[in-house]
């Protein structure tokens, strides 16, 4: 049974389950099969760089890696560690306007930990998709609930540009004034009786008037680039199309991971359908079975492992139809780790598969 590749392959799940290394190994495996692959991580902790030996200064750029496993092959793979600032520069380039790069507030918020990561990631994904350069884009997402931020950011973009703001944007859009500060001031005086003006008045009492002006500038700047943001909304449709994307929900047999995986699947119900794949990572079944305990204490420890894994399998099988099992890899070096996982992708074991 083939685990067919799709244009988007998304690895989600809580932290510490091996998501990053699984995503990287999947990308390498697909490249080995002859596909052109882009691997993107939007995880602020940037763990992927350790795995593939990518440096911090490469963040935000697409880096072509040859022979990632050091086997002397000509295997190629493109990798990108997302950097929000670079994405903003690309948006500026697309909208042929520097405003978005120069806006002070947006600059601060676009810093790697500034918090606009998830929204810019959607745009980054969309931009790469538009290039039509890759057979597959493999996405490694931020762990846990922050991944939900990723899913929800599409909604946030929609909300931000919703009807309530259209008045402001339409008004600002019609302005043809050259000076930036006068634009905002004129807006403030013209919008006489609206809830928005009231709101901005209140806001300026709390934050200071100069902030409000700069904030309006930031809003206007975003508005100028709205097409880029709104195009990204199409992405969500693609992500929900089973022909266009595969979702891998990764969990592991370690203690607290199962509950987190269940919580995550609850939260992302719309996207993680029954056709999603669950990966149960770090399985020890094979190794544990071979263990012959010689004391009561050893038996206790063995039972603890066996019980844990059984519990995971039972709970997962009750919720999901497609479960992939990956064995624990005991190599300390990240690259060795990835290599073993690539082998497992080539040769995976399916448990409880009930459909094709």
């Amino acid at each position: 049974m083939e685990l067919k590749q799709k244009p988007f392959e998304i690895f989600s799940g809580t932290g510490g389950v091996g998501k990053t290394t699984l995503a990287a190994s999947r990308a390498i495996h697909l490249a080995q099969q002859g596909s052109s692959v882009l691997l993107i991580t939007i995880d602020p902790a940037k763990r992927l760089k350790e795995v593939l030996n990518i440096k911090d200064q490469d963040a935000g750029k697409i880096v072509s890696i040859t022979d990632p496993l050091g086997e002397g092959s000509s295997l190629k793979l493109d990798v990108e560690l997302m950097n929000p600032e670079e994405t903003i520069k690309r948006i500026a380039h697309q909208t042929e306007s520097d405003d978005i790069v120069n806006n002070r507030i947006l600059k601060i918020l676009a810093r790697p930990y500034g918090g606009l990561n998830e929204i810019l990631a959607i745009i980054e994904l969309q931009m790469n998709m538009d290039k039509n350069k890759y057979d597959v884009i493999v996405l490694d997402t931020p762990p846990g609930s922050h991944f939900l931020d990723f899913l929800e950011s599409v909604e946030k973009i929609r909300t931000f540009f919703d009807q309530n703001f259209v008045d402001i944007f339409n008004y600002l859009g019609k302005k043809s004034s050259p000076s930036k500060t006068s634009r905002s001031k004129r807006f403030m005086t013209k919008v006489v009786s609206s809830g928005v003006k009231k709101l901005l008045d209140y806001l300026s009492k709390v934050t200071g008037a100069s902030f409000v002006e700069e904030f309006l500038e930031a809003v206007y700047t975003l508005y100028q680039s709205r097409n880029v943001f709104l195009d990204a909304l199409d992405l969500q449709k693609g992500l929900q199309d089973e022909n266009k994307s595969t979702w891998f929900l990764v969990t592991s047999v370690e203690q607290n991971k199962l509950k987190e995986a269940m919580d995550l699947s609850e939260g992302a119900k719309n996207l993680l359908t029954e056709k999603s794949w669950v990966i149960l990572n770090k399985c020890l079944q094979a190794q544990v079975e071979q263990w012959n305990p010689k004391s009561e204490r050893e038996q206790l420890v063995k039972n603890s492992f066996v019980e844990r894994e059984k519990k995971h399998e039972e709970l997962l099988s009750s919720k999901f139809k497609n479960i992939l099992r990956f064995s624990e890899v005991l190599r300390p070096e990240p690259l060795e780790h990835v290599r073993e996982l690539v082998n497992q992708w080539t040769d995976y074991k399916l448990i409880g598969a009930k459909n094709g």
Partner: protein
Amino acid sequence: MLSDHKRLYIITGKGGVGKTALSLAFTKYLRSQGVKANYLNFTTANLEKPKSDIQEIIQAKKMGVPLTALNLYDCASGYVAKKLKSQTVAKFVVKTPFFKALISMIPGFNYTIYLGQALELLKEDSEQVFVLDSPSSGHAITMLEATKNFGEIFQAGSLFEDTQKMLSHIYSEGFTQINVLSLPILMAANEALELQEKLKTIAPIESKVICNNSFAGLEGVKDMELPNFLSKKLETEMLIKKEFGQEIESFIPHSLQNIDEDIVNDLVPYMDQLV
């Protein structure tokens, strides 16, 4: 009665290191030492869900761990109400789509609001101590940087002054401690130490790196004839102790339990290492 302790403990680390279990165990431990500690979790104060539906709250309640649940809009409207001297206006402001979009597009804004409220509560009750089960790695940095960024964003005015006050409070001596959790795996240890370094550049706060899920610490493990997969785990741990012995202060033993409540109780006796 434990008297030498901080007012705010921030438990952080990459996703999945056991922050929640350890935070709950630590809260229990502090209480057992006569400290008025409460478990605090910002992610629980979800915008849409009412307080009672949040998983961590149910879990903490079930385990009898005292907790503080903060609702984002209550915190925000409380602050705005103080500034505008009107609760009615504040409620209007925080319910507008504009404000909601602001909060949801800029995650750091949330944390600043929560932290502000948490600090208010600590000011009101000098006995109170919070154990904050904070967001994973990168986002914990977001939390502290957000507070710094908002100072930069607002520059002048009362909001700026308030964020500055918040920061100096958090940075005051003996007030805060950040406990960075790690696992006995090379990649995890590297990441925890990287996080600690990064946090040091953002904030002058005391921090400790603590390794969770240690097998070497398991009772009787040294006498056992171990199967390959376990002896490899021990080997890696020894490697980590050798390389990072200076920087990683404590190793908390793995719990053999499989039920959340039992795991937390197993951890309690070792929590003195987090103080």
